[in-house]
C-alpha cells in the first residue's frame, strides 16, 4: 500500500515537473526564432472564433438566469432596480471569466489533447522532430499564446452578451426599464472590476491550452490513451481554473484595494 502511494506520489511529482518544464519552454520560445505565425493564427481562429457560439449562447442564458434569480429575491424587498448592479458585478468579476474558461476548456483543452495525442500515437510528432522541427515551438507555443490572447476577448464578449441576456430578462420578466438596467450596470462597475475580469482569463487561457498540450504530448497506450488524455485534459484544466480563480480573486481584491 505504502509502495503504491509512493509510486503515485512520484508520478504526480514527475507530471508537475514535466508540465512546468513544457509550459516554461512554451513561453520562452516567444523570445527566439523560429516563430510559426500561421499556426498561431490558425489556433486563434480555432480557439477564439471556434468557441464563440458556445460562449455567446451560454453568456446570454447565464445573464438571464442571474436576473431571474436575483430579481426574485429583490422583489421581496422592492429593490428590483438593483438587479443591474448585481448582475454586472457578478458577471464581470467572476462568472464571465470563469464560465468562459471552463467552457473553452471543455471544447479546446479536449480538442488540443486529442489532436496532439493522435499525432503522438501515429508518430507524427516523432516525424516532426526527425525533420528538425521542435514540437514545443510548432505545436505548444502557438496554442498557448492563442489561448492567452483569445480568452480575454471571449470573456469580454461573454460579459456583454450576459448583460444583454440580463437586460432582456429584466425587461420582460421584472418589467424594468432597459436604459435604467444598463445605466445601473455600467455605473456599478469600476476599473478594479474590469481589471479583475480581464486578468483572470489571461491565466485561464494559459492553463487550458498548456494542460491540453501536456496531456496530448504525454499520451501512451494508443487510441485508448488518447481518449483518457482528452478526458483528463478537461477535468484537470477545469479544476485548475476553479482553483486558480480563488487565488486570482484574492490577488485582484488585494491589488484593487492597494492601487485603486
Amino acid at each position, binding site marked *: 500500500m505504502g509502495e503504491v502511494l509512493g509510486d503515485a506520489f512520484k508520478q504526480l511529482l514527475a507530471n508537475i515537473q514535466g508540465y512546468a518544464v513544457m509550459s516554461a519552454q512554451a513561453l520562452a520560445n516567444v523570445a527566439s526564432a523560429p516563430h510559426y505565425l500561421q499556426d498561431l493564427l490558425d489556433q486563434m481562429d480555432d480557439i477564439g472564433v471556434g468557441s464563440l457560439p458556445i460562449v455567446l449562447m451560454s453568456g446570454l442564458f447565464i445573464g438571464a438566469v442571474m436576473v431571474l434569480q436575483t430579481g426574485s429575491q429583490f422583489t421581496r424587498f422592492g429593490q428590483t432596480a438593483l438587479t443591474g448592479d448585481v448582475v454586472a458585478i457578478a458577471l464581470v468579476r467572476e462568472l464571465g471569466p470563469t464560465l468562459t474558461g471552463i467552457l473553452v476548456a471543455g471544447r479546446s483543452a479536449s480538442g488540443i489533447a486529442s489532436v496532439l495525442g*493522435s*499525432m503522438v500515437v*501515429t*508518430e*507524427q510528432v*516523432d*516525424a*516532426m*522532430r*526527425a*525533420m*528538425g*522541427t*521542435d514540437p514545443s515551438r510548432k505545436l505548444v507555443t502557438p496554442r498557448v499564446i492563442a489561448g492567452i490572447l483569445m480568452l480575454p476577448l471571449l470573456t469580454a464578449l461573454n460579459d456583454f452578451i450576459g448583460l444583454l441576456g440580463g437586460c432582456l430578462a429584466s425587461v420582460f420578466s421584472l418589467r424594468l426599464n432597459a436604459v435604467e438596467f444598463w445605466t445601473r450596470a455600467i455605473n456599478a462597475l469600476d476599473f478594479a472590476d474590469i481589471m479583475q475580469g480581464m486578468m483572470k482569463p489571461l491565466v485561464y487561457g494559459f492553463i487550458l491550452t498548456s494542460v491540453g498540450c501536456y496531456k496530448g504530448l504525454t499520451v501512451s497506450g494508443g487510441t485508448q490513451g488518447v481518449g483518457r488524455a482528452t478526458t483528463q485534459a478537461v477535468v484537470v484544466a477545469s479544476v485548475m481554473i476553479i482553483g486558480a480563480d480563488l487565488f486570482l480573486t484574492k490577488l485582484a481584491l488585494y491589488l484593487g484595494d492597494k492601487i485603486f
Partner: protein
Amino acid sequence: MTTSSPQETDSPQGTETSAVVTFANVRIGFDEGDILRDVSFAVMPRETLVLLGETGTGKTLTLKMAAGLLRPMRGKIEMLGQEVSAMSENELLAHRRQLGFVFQEGALFDSLSVFENVAYGLREERVAEEEIESRVLEALRFVELEHTGEMLPSELSGGMRRRVSIARALATRPPIVLYDSPTAGLDPVTAQTIITLILRLRDVYGVTAMLATHRLQDGFALAKFRFDAESKRVVRLTEAENAASENEPPTRFMVYRDGRVYFEGAPEEFAESKDAYLQRFLASI
C-alpha cells in the same frame, strides 16, 4: 557470425573512409528492463544495413537512437561525424535535417496535403518557394505519385502513404535514410513497389540506409537486385556483378536476439549459416 567494430574500415578504393553511423557499446531499456545491451556496429557510406529480429527486439529503437529521437542509457552513437548521443535537443534538431526517416505507418501529417507533407522539410530549411515546388514535384515523380499533390493522407491507400513518406524523406536530399519496417502490413505487390523505390534511392542517389524489418525477403531483395537507371527497371545482379559488388558498399544483415547483435554479416553468410535460430528465420520466408 561476426561483429564489426565501429571503426574506420577500408573503402573500395583502399583509402580510409569514415563510417556514416557508428554505435559503440550502446545500451537502452525501459521500466521492464534492458532492450538492447552492448550493441556495437558501423554503417559505411552507401551501405545498406538491414536490421532483422523478432518484434520487440529493438530494431525501431536502434533507428530512433541513430536519429537522436531517443537517447541511449550508455554508449556512444555517431552519425556523419557528429556524436548524436551527446548533442543537446537544439543541436539534434539541426542535425536531423541531414537525414531522412521513413516511419512504419508513414507518419504523414494528416492535416496537410500530400504536397505540403513533402514540402515540410524544405519549408523548415527556408528553401525558396519556386525551388520547393520543383523539388516536391521531383520527389513525388520519383515515387510515381505526382498526381496526388492536392490529396490529404486520409485519401491515400497504405502503400501510397508509404510512398509519400519516402518522397518526404528524399525531398531534402539527405545522405542517409532510415526505414522503419517500410513494408509492414502491405500486400506483396505493394511491398515490392516500396522495395523498388528503396533500390532506386540507393542506386540512383547513392544514399546510405538502415532498414529495420522482420521480412527477410526485403533484405534479400536489396542484396540480390539493383535498379538499372538506363532501362529504369529492377534487375537481378549477375554473377559477375555479384563478384564485383564484393568490393562495393554491400547490403549487410544484422540480427538482434535477446538484446544483443546475434548475427552480423553478408546475406550469403546468413543464407548459408547452419545456426538453428537463423535457419528458423530463413524458413519463415
